[in-house]
């Protein structure tokens, strides 16, 4: 639990620094991300067991589908709630947290919804970092992976594997990988409708 406070303090400190000083750290975030992913890889390699792969099979394939459908329904719900054209809600929901893809793709059609697509999905990533360690007290760490959407392949993978445990790490990565593979095709398809 103490580590969660450190995570929240780190996020808050970073947010305040970004808000009030706007420093240019260059690629620091990406570099740290790659270091984290490398360390996660080492950890997976150190603890790799074929039996774990067999255990994973079906859930790893069904969970991304549920995540995507649930996310689209959530986006559609917001569109209906705020009287936004349903197409924007569906495409923002289909982004599943991948803000750097969703925002620019939507912005080709609408600057305003491009900004919403970017921010909404960015907030989902931040929300996952804050909420995942807490909700796994009530729901299974595997099901809770769904809140991270496509980000579970990289940015939220460290926090999920840290709090959900090593057993969840592989499922988490595969979940994010499947969504990441689908979305570059799905989002332009929805936008073209």
């Amino acid at each position: 639990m103490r580590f969660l406070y450190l995570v929240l303090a780190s996020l808050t400190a970073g947010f305040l620094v970004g808000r009030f000083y706007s420093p240019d750290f260059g690629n620091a975030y990406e570099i740290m991300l790659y270091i984290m992913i490398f360390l996660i890889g080492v950890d997976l390699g150190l603890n790799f067991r074929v039996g774990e792969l067999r255990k994973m099979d079906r859930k790893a394939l069904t969970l991304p589908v549920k995540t995507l459908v649930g996310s689209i329904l959530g986006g559609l719900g917001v569109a209906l709630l705020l009287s936004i054209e349903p197409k924007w809600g569906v495409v923002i929901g289909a982004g599943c947290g991948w803000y750097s893809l969703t925002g620019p793709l939507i912005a080709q059609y609408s600057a305003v919804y491009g900004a919403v697509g970017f921010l909404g999905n960015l907030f989902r990533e931040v929300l996952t970092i804050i909420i995942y360690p807490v909700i796994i007290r009530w729901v299974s760490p595997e099901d809770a992976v769904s809140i991270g959407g496509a980000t579970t392949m990289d940015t939220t993978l460290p926090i999920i594997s840290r709090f959900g445990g090593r057993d969840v790490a592989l499922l988490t990565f595969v979940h994010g990988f499947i969504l990441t593979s689908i979305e570059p095709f799905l989002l332009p398809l929805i936008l073209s409708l």
Partner: protein
Amino acid sequence: MNMNIFIPLIFGVVLGYALKNRGKQPNLERLTGLALLLMIFFLGVKTGKVKINGIWLLGTSILFALLTAGGSLLLALGVRG
């Protein structure tokens, strides 16, 4: 997010597997924790730098984040299989 993520991941898995085969089991917990905190800090900086124009944009984005994540979780919990 891009496919470059595979390069450090595969390097890591190969190194970890090689270390395992040599009977070495380094404790990565502290190193991983430190790297994670730094990564989260830089994510916070990135988020803080985003200029938000108007309450509507902020509120709508937060609502999208909550309902899309919530929808995914509800379906994951509600549909078995």
